[in-house]
């Protein structure tokens, strides 16, 4: 049953990903991308990464896609119907992507450690409770749940506190940059 769900969500992710590339109407592309991200979030959940899966839906399928749709509708972009194809770019893109996909598939299928399945890489929560120092995480582990938001938070704030602040600064710079970029320049006479 879990393997059936994997194939279902992999198909949703890749199928709607293909729709993004093929659709002629930008609104169709944007909505397909949102669906593709939902499928990807389900794949994250199947990997026991609940926090990342929820973040994927909130940030990508929520905030980023709304921003995209807002810009598409603000600019009033027409679909490309009736326009001639750029044959060179399309052939180049398809060949490049096919070569890369074959390469990745060849490397991945000959990668020995990659043959471990989810049952072999089993999580041992009661044993992990013995190793953790924080009581709140240890209690969750003993109760049989995986407190992955707490564990990601522990990793972020204990090991990568400085990097987290740099990312905060990056968001601030990004916000200021967007405001500067979207300000209309005054007419120069």
């Amino acid at each position, binding site marked *: 049953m879990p393997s059936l769900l994997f194939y279902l969500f*992999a198909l949703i*992710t*890749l199928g709607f*990903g293909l729709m*993004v*590339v093929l659709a002629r109407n*930008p609104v169709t*592309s944007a909505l397909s991308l949102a669906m*593709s991200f939902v499928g*990807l979030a389900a*794949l994250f959940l199947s*990997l026991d*990464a609940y926090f*990342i899966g929820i*973040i*994927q839906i909130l940030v990508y399928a929520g*905030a980023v896609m709304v921003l*995209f749709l807002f*810009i598409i509708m603000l*600019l009033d972009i027409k679909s490309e119907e009736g326009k001639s194809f*750029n044959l060179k*770019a399309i052939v*180049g*893109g398809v060949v*490049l*992507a*096919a070569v*890369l*996909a074959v390469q*990745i*598939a060849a490397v*991945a*299928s000959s*990668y020995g*450690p*990659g*043959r*471990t*399945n989810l049952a072999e*890489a089993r*999580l*041992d929560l009661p*044993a*992990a409770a013995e190793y953790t120092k924080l009581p709140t995480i240890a209690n969750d582990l003993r109760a049989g749940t995986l407190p992955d938001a707490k*564990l*990601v938070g*522990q*990793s972020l704030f204990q*090991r*990568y506190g400085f990097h987290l602040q740099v*990312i905060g600064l*990056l*968001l601030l710079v*990004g*916000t200021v*940059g*967007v405001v500067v*970029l*979207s300000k*209309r320049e005054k007419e120069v006479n």
Partner: protein
Amino acid sequence: MITLNHYLIVSGLLFSLGLAGVVARRNILIIYMCLEMMLSAANLTLVAFTRFHVTDGLPDFTAQSLVFFTITVAAAEVAVGLAIIVALYRTKRSVETESVTQLQG
């Protein structure tokens, strides 16, 4: 059973789809969407390796904090990129790559 390779191949295919879109499409907005798709494919690889690298009975959460950083950077990148696209549309009245040829030799 689903192995690590299954996830790696799905991630590789998603990345290739994004690459094909970036090279083949002419609408800058769709190129941007395909860039987001490639970033997410990289995230899937990181999360898959996280899950299959079990230390002390738990997944290795170091890579998941890297995924958190990637998602944050991608969000900032989208905001700035869309502002640039809007500024471009104001001057060129188009979001096609053919309309931006000022630096062409």
